[in-house]
């Protein structure tokens, strides 16, 4: 597993843009409302029985598209990939 994201459920407004743009389909909509009354996004990991199967690459496309800055993205530390992230 190369990458991981953390979604701030209370910031999330369930717009679904991260889900659309995740190349690895690692994000879904969870089924309980948050305090604001939205159904927030959830990272596959949380559902995946076997973490090894999670394919998040840490590409940060989700974060790039998230209007509400509700996503933090983590990636295995490789300098070149890190640089890429910086450009992102």
């Amino acid at each position, binding site marked *: 597993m190369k*990458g*991981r994201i953390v979604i701030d459920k*209370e*910031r999330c*407004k*369930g*717009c*679904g*843009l991260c889900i*659309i*743009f995740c190349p690895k389909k690692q994000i879904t909509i969870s089924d309980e409302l948050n305090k604001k009354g*939205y159904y927030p996004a959830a990272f596959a990991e949380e559902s995946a029985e076997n973490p090894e199967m999670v394919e998040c690459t*840490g590409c*940060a*496309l989700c*974060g*790039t*598209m*998230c*209007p*509400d*800055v509700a*996503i*933090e*993205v*983590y*990636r*295995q*530390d490789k300098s070149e*990939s*890190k640089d890429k*992230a*910086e*450009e*992102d």
Partner: protein
Amino acid sequence: MKKVFSRPKSLKETPFHYCPGCGHSIIHRLVAEVIDELGIRDNTIGVPPAGCAVLAYNYFDVDMAEAPHGRAAAVATGIKRVLPDRIVFTYQGDGDIAAIGTAETIHAANRGERITAVFVNNAVYGMTGGQMAPTTIPGQVTTTSPGGRIPLRDGNPLDLSEMLGLAAGSIYIERTAVTSPKGVMRTKKALKKAFTVQLEDKGYSMVEILSPCPTNWKLSPAESIRWVDEVMTKIFPVKVIKDVA
């Protein structure tokens, strides 16, 4: 693992009040990232006029001055003339910059005021509940163009950015869209360049950003993005309109 993406410093923690999928939110983040990367947070003054983004001052952690609707360019001119070594940007909607603020915008650009305008084009008056904007697309239904905009009656969309391209004092004008990771990145690059033009004291710079307004378009966030790409960009092509930097 290493954190590779998170909230920029120039953004306060306050959650946005914007609707789900609103382009303003993405654009706020991009402006904040650019301010971070240029290291100008404590040297910048932002000027948001009335519009859905009038509360921008609750989000940007820089000095912020609210402007009357349409007058951001004039207010920014006053600030910049007094503090020429500060960075001054306006954050204006289409109604603000292309309708009520037409004169102030064109003349600020023509005088070559060293300010940067972030022009959020969502083809509608968002804050007031979805009336026709100067940028509303022919046929687009709004609360004041019930049957859809009829050019013969309501006129066609106004190409403000192209007009500003004719202004002697404008240095850099680009139109982008925040409807895909690529578009977002391109928008960020454009914003960075626009601020740089000001840092180099060259003149007026502006980035027009096509931005979804799901609420007033009565579309889902996903549909909104598609509508921008398939309809809006036909009339407002994404491109560099002027670059004499």
